[in-house]
């Protein structure tokens, strides 16, 4: 059965202050309710005042997503009662959002963007003694209340979760390049995913954090809907909650009708006109976007398109890192090879991003130079990287401390001779023309000398000595 999927993506915008007051947005490592004021707590008598930076950022996003930007727009009140809502209404955009009708290209396909609008985040709730369905009580932290969000709504254009993943990866990279979003912050990007099987009702999975969870949630939901149908039942229209631990979804509420939020225009905020002059100012601020960057990396550095995509889409900071390295060491092809293989592997293994790691261009290049000048072998380089990513110490130091420099000629010859003596069968095989036997012998030597010699040199020695 064909699946039809659409996304609503909520992104925390990277501004210093909240959307409608001057409280700081940085709520990590803060006491609960430390970043609050009468406005973001909705005290009687307080009024919102829109932060222009938020509108600037949203215009940039809308432009990057090829949207039509409305020349004037309004804010609206979306009313519903919930303990995370300071005013029991959310300031958002309804009839006339900032932008509509855009698209983003993924492989062989355009995904339509229905709209891009701004809204305020509610407070963060802590469910004590259980999850959202079983908690004994709830604590509310209003540090998050009023933080600016943009909501990107797509058309229902996705058919596979692979497309969803590609789209999210691309959006995330665009937002990073626009410098409006911090991908390392928990909950900086949350997704509501809608999915239906052809001819069936639509189910919304609410509030999923993390791309992988979006994929898992959608996959689970498709399987669930299929089995519901196979059992001869109808899929019900409802909102479901994704449990990241069990990787399953559970029903939150039935949705027989569209929820009714009783929207009115936000009367405390005036109509906002987005003039051509304003748009031109934003044009000047528009940075290079990921696809443009990939093309430039290919053209300017001679790296492959695949490699360029890896560094750009993994993390903008990784692409920045690559370019920084190229400034101090003019071997981009070697640099990118090391980045997309061993460095990335090591970072992932340690679950750390380039920005939060101790990896710096200067020391990373030091490592490449050790290899290029033959001080250590490439194979040893792979070992050094593991240590280097964890400690951030100078690779030279690591090499010296661990005694990883190459062993001298005499010792090497001695070791080769010993290996030949011990592995007569392999030597015979080699002489018979079995190439694998040679690889085996080289491997044995490397093991014996803890890889402190160039494999090619060992090969030549074996050839000479057998």
């Amino acid at each position, binding site marked *: 059965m064909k699946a039809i999927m659409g996304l609503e993506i909520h992104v925390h915008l990277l501004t210093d202050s909240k959307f409608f007051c001057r409280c700081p947005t940085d709520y990590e490592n803060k006491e609960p309710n430390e970043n609050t004021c009468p406005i973001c707590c909705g005290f009687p008598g307080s009024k919102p005042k829109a932060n222009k930076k938020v509108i600037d950022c949203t215009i940039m996003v809308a432009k990057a997503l090829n949207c039509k930007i409305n020349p004037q727009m309004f804010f609206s009140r979306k009313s519903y009662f919930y303990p995370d809502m300071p005013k029991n209404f959310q300031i958002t955009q309804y009839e006339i959002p900032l932008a509509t009708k855009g698209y983003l290209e993924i492989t062989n396909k355009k995904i339509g963007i229905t709209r891009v609008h701004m809204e305020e985040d509610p407070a963060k709730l802590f469910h004590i003694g259980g999850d959202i369905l079983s908690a004994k009580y709830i604590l509310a932290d209003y540090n998050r209340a009023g933080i600016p969000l943009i909501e990107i709504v797509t058309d229902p254009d996705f058919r596979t979760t692979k497309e969803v993943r590609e789209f999210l990866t691309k959006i995330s990279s665009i937002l990073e390049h626009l410098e409006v979003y911090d991908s390392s912050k928990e909950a900086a990007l949350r997704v509501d995913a809608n999915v239906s099987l052809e001819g069936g009702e639509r189910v919304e999975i609410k509030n999923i954090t993390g791309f992988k969870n979006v994929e898992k949630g959608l996959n689970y939901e498709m399987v669930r809907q299929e089995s519901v149908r196979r059992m001869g039942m109808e899929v019900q229209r409802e909102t479901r909650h994704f449990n990241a631990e069990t990787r399953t979804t559970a029903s939150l509420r039935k949705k027989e009708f569209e929820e009714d939020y*009783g929207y009115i225009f936000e009367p405390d905020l005036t109509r906002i006109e987005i003039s051509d002059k304003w748009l031109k100012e934003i044009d000047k601020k528009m940075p290079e976007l990921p696809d443009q960057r990939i093309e430039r990396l290919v053209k300017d550095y001679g790296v492959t398109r695949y490699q360029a995509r890896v560094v750009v889409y993994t993390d903008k900071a990784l692409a920045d890192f690559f370019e920084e390295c190229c400034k101090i060491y003019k071997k981009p092809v070697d640099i990118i090879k090391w980045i997309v293989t061993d460095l990335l592997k090591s970072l992932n293994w340690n679950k750390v991003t380039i920005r939060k790691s101790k990896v710096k261009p200067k020391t990373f290049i030091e490592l490449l130079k050790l290899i290029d000048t033959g001080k250590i072998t490439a194979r040893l380089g792979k070992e050094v990287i593991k240590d280097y990513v964890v400690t951030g110490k100078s690779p030279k130091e690591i090499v010296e401390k661990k005694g990883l420099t190459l062993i001298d000629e005499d010792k090497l010859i001695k070791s080769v001779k010993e290996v030949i003596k011990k592995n007569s069968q392999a030597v015979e095989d080699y002489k018979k023309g079995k190439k694998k036997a040679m690889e085996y012998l080289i491997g044995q030597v490397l093991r014996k000398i803890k890889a402190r010699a160039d494999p090619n040199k060992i090969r030549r020695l074996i050839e000479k000595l057998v």
Partner: protein
Amino acid sequence: MKQDILKKAKEINEKFNVFITIADKVETSGKGKLSGIAISVKDNICTKGMQSTAGSRILEGYIPPFDATVVEKCRKEGAFIIGKTTEDEFGFGTFSINTGFDVPKNPLDPERSCGGSSGGAAGLTVAVDFPHIAIGESTGGSISCPAAFCGVVGLTPTYGRVSRWGLIDYGNSLDKIGSISKTVKDTALLLSVISGPDEYDSTVLQLKQEDFTKHLKDSVKGIKIGIPKEYFGEGVDEKITKLVWQAIKKLESLGANYKEVSLPHTKYALSSYYIIAMAEASTNLAKLCGMRYGLHKPIKGNYDEYFSEVRSQGFTEEAKRRIILGTFTRMAGFREAYYLKALKVRTKVIQDFKKAFKNYDVLIAPTMPVVAPRFDEIAKLEPIQHYTMDILTVGPNLAGIPMISVPCGLVDELPVGLHIMGDHLQEGKIIQVAHTFEVNK
């Protein structure tokens, strides 16, 4: 001397219930345009450190951590705040009977209403014998109505002339803070202090602070007065109409000229006003749920049940009615027919006024269709009849134009208000006409 004023305020309050809160002591911060003048503040306007309930039990005990901009400006000009005046809960009424606290009585006849919703402000103004100006607030007529019923002057400025920061909202697109006092001069003085730009209110106009007392000229020579015929129709007490016409003739004798004018959308203004005001009010009141401030109850059940419990107890019947009606008008399926339609009608009403002001400097009409009614008469009225009382004030309030009500005589020994309306930002003209009438009547 100031302690004496507090004593007097308490005595007035004992008789007429015009205050919800009276200050413990009087504090001033220096000298200025208002030094020596006692300022009373309608209870829906926040005063730092002094309870502000907007006339509702759901906000009983709520002490704002900040001053409204208008209060801060008054303090800077040397005024002292004597207390918070009684009102209909959140401004929901025309007679101040929809209050969570004691109903204010008209000092001219305690059997009668002060009007509303700024009832306490007008009642206090007529009762005091010390220098005093009241800060009032009007959404659909809440300054003009009580000023008329109590025989004092009430000035409602252009929407956007005065910052609403610190005003506990009723209908944000309609709410205007203004002044009530014994003379036109004092209302102009207070407006000069409280108006002007404010970075905390996005809807306030970026205009320089102005001195409105310079418009206190004794002259109406060449002033063109429009008489909106729809404002003299059915339901308006004939004796009131007669008095208002006498006032118009008086102004004519002083050099003004007048002509009848039509505001054809007047009959739709009332519905449009109530729909917009209630739609906005129903969202404004949502935050009052016993969670963060105001009334609290022991927690039982889930949050929906808890919110309902607090709101059932904290709001008066009228607030509940307006929440239900306001919510209805913005629900899917009705939103188009009510809320959005009302916004369109509002534009038509504004166009009526704009057209009239092309030819006239001011429009003059009665402020209220009746004199202050007795409480037993009010008790017999249906809610819709309450709303109809606002028929003459909602139009200009919906349009956001400035208006001033000045006493123009007595009917059955009760005061009648003359309503002088001006084009947007033409407070100067209405002050001039009102002042001229006041000194020559």
